[in-house]
């Protein structure tokens, strides 16, 4: 999966989860959107991480040695991209 595909998949997941969590996302969500201002609530983010774990097979936040809280959508995606490379590389 390319970086762009992953970016696209996370964006799709965000939409799905927002619907499930009954949250109204701001339009448009861009790379610079601050997550806390995206319209998704904290439980919604937990669902996003859960959904991505089911789809991608990993949860980068559980694998990190220290707690990291991405601020923007781009930072969130970038964490997944880093871990995807790690998984792809074995």
């Amino acid at each position, binding site marked *: 999966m390319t970086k762009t595909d992953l970016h696209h998949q996370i964006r799709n997941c965000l939409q799905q989860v927002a619907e499930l969590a009954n949250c109204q996302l701001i339009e448009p969500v861009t790379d610079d959107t601050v997550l806390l201002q995206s319209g998704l609530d904290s*439980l919604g983010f*937990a*669902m996003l991480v*859960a*959904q991505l*774990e*089911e789809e991608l*097979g990993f949860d980068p936040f*559980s694998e990190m040695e220290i707690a990291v809280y991405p601020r923007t959508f781009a930072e969130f995606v970038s964490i997944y991209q880093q871990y995807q490379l790690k998984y792809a590389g074995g």
Partner: protein
Amino acid sequence: MRKLVVVSGASRGLGLAICRQLLQTGYAVLALARTHSQDLQQLQQQQPALHFMAADLAELAEIPALCSRIVKAFGRPYALINNAAVGYDGVLATMHNSEIGSLLNINVQAPILLSKYLLRPMLLNQSGRIVNISSIIARTGFNGLSVYAASKAALEGFSKSLAREVGKAGITVNCVAPGYMQTEMTSSLQGDKLESIKRRSPLGRLATPDDAAAAVLYLLSEQAGAVTGTVITVDAGSTA
């Protein structure tokens, strides 16, 4: 399709009684325990909906991977019963620090982590149940059980706040607090002490693992859909 319930500490005592009642009621059960006990194996022969996965919950770092394996192999669970616990007794002043640490890991951290990781698939299902097995010792004192008491009080506090956190996702979180039951965990409680607990109980007996398991079954039922953030005491009235 049968709803899947994950039960920790399922090899004996209350955990085994919970598994037995769940299977009789039509749930599928994933039993977690360190060892695949003979009782569990026998139950599995009669009940093909009983699955077993070996898990040592003292290995906290393994819990995320364990939960991933569970969801991959069995799908999203409907409920989690955090029943596994250790009950070392001894006065605090001479209890070894390693024992204090391992009791808190197994009785508090492990159920919190299992809840964290099995809650996620429940969030995606927008429904689920978590039942944490507490004890009347969370709220009544007993000589020699201070650390155990701390662990059970912690679970009750955890359950109430988590109930508030996940209620809007259709997930309930409750505790069942049994009184003294005759299981291996309480085997050191004998003679006069045991008789005095029985005598002081309004019903003149101890609660059994089956009595406590029935409360767990109720909390999993549709009828308990409006019950969350609470503790059901099953102690034959000992703390009344």
